[in-house]
């Protein structure tokens, strides 16, 4: 563990310093955000966002949690969709990546193009709405929340790229041992790709967690509204209704702090989970690197 060389010392010092500066820039606005979400609306209007506000208030949170069962239900929908969706998506995405990675597959580049082409061209909102909502009949179902954001070419191609670092000889020797391709994928590739799976799993989970668009398009049943959509509705009703509706009873709604409280409410749980995921890609590195 001892650091003996000057150049290593310099490198470490530089790393610590620069990473600290970068994290500071990332963290301070977020800190201000959290504090301001607890700041009285009046204080924000008069003085803007500050680290030391004059008047604290939990109005914004009171507005969000005005109906606690609704929020609890929304969290539960989001959790189910995120957990199941991520597991299914990660499994099939990596399996697809494995196929694209295998040199034996003669048409692998055609298959990759088949996937990638959809990134370039799409038929627009109307066609998507009709196909998914009416033809596939997925409106108002939990399935639509899981299915619509399921695959992203970005994730699949990054996974394939990571697999490129797996020595091909492992696959060949497994082949000789009589394992079929599915077995090779499950027993050889998956265990070796943990850091990649952790990263892409995280990305997929974030996509699910942040997705309000699918709900906006296809969910009318309020019991199936995920968290982000519920928050989005609260914000849009507070912001826009005050200009469109005549008898607005809650015009005093804390609009500015509400925006910020929403971020806190939506991000909080992820921040608790993040370190657990993090350990996979952090560990992957530290095992060998610390030795020297």
């Amino acid at each position, binding site marked *: 563990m001892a650091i003996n060389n000057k150049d290593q010392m310099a490198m470490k010092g530089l790393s610590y310093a620069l990473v600290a500066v970068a994290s500071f820039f990332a963290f301070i606005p977020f800190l201000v955000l959290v504090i301001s979400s607890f700041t009285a609306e009046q204080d924000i209007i008069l003085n803007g966002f500050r680290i030391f506000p004059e008047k604290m208030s939990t109005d914004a949170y009171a507005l969000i949690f005005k109906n606690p069962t609704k929020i609890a239900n929304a969290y539960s929908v989001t959790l189910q969709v995120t957990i199941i969706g991520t597991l299914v998506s990660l499994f099939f995405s990596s399996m697809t990546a494995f196929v694209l990675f295998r040199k034996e597959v003669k048409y692998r580049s055609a298959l990759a193009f088949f996937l990638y082409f959809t990134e370039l061209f799409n*038929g627009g909102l109307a066609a998507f709405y009709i196909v998914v909502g009416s033809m596939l009949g997925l409106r108002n179902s939990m399935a639509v929340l899981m299915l619509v954001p399921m695959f992203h070419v970005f994730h699949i191609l990054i996974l394939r790229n990571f697999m490129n670092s797996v020595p091909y000889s492992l696959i060949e020797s497994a082949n000789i041992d009589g394992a079929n391709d599915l077995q090779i994928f499950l027993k050889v590739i998956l265990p070796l790709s943990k850091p990649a799976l952790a990263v892409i799993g995280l990305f997929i989970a974030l996509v699910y967690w942040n997705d309000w668009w699918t709900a906006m398009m296809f969910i009318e049943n309020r019991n199936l509204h995920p968290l982000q959509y519920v928050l989005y509705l609260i914000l849009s009703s507070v912001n826009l209704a005050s200009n469109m509706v005549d008898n607005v009873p809650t015009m005093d709604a804390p609009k500015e702090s509400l925006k910020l409280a929403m971020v806190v409410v939506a991000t909080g749980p992820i921040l608790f989970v993040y370190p657990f995921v993090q350990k996979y890609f952090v560990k992957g590195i530290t095992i060998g690197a610390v030795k020297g």
Partner: protein
Amino acid sequence: MIMKKNMNKSGKGFLHEINKNKVLYLMFLPTAIWYLLFRYLPMAGIVVAFKNFNYRDGLFFSPWIGLKNFEYLFNSGKLWSVTQNTIVYNVSFLALYLFFSMFIAILLNEINNKHFKKVTQSMLILPYFVSWVVVSAFVYNFFNFEHGIVNNLLESIGMGRVNLVTQAEVWPFLLSFLYIWKWIGFGSVIYLAAISGISQEHYEAAKIDGANAFQQIFYITLPELKSTTIILALLGLGRVMRGEFDMFYNLIGNNGLLMDKTDIIDTMVFRALMGSSDFGMASAGAFYQSVLCFIIILTSNYLVKKYEANSALF
């Protein structure tokens, strides 16, 4: 079965190939079905860009009107300048994103203190969660003409206050900074995972050869990250015509004074179609972007394939 036609040229037939790797093709099938249902089926809607849409006849039977839906783009007199803006912004965003993500990941990798690393890394990902609506509230507050932190700071160091709303030349830098700020944590995670895949033997060998810490980064880490960088760059180039609509729209809004420097294709289309609900013209805008992206990605992928076959997208 559809692919059959193309396949005769290469000695053994299509069926033979499918049969030989049937397990692999079967493994691809679930994803393929999803793509057919959720991507290719709706793609038929692309025709609406060439149609005079009406509800009676629907997306597919409305009368054709050729390129009429595209006229508003080409006659606007601004198409070239917004296309230029879109490319310049996105290419610089992409370059900065790749550079800083890689840079931070390499630095993070040098850090041994587990807790320091975990905490800083968690901090770096925080901006990812802040939506552009909130970022714009922050920019407004921090740069507020009277009490914004940044303006107070500028004044205290004798630079005078800036009114962001009227100073277009500041925006390209501010937008780039915000883009990096938001995405760097996200990007560095990919690079961290990539670094973790580099075999330790390389480093051991280099140390024996007397390479110092900086040389190890230059001669081992960076070359090993090349394929990841290429794939990320290609994926980014494929989206180069699609701006970050949320970012530009939330930060710039309807501020005409900034428009020459900050209007991108997406915001121009959005503004042009305000007050209309025309599927055809919206599709036409998207189609224009798609075609340009298609050309760019085919070219860049071709070049990559020529020099770095393994890193090509397809």
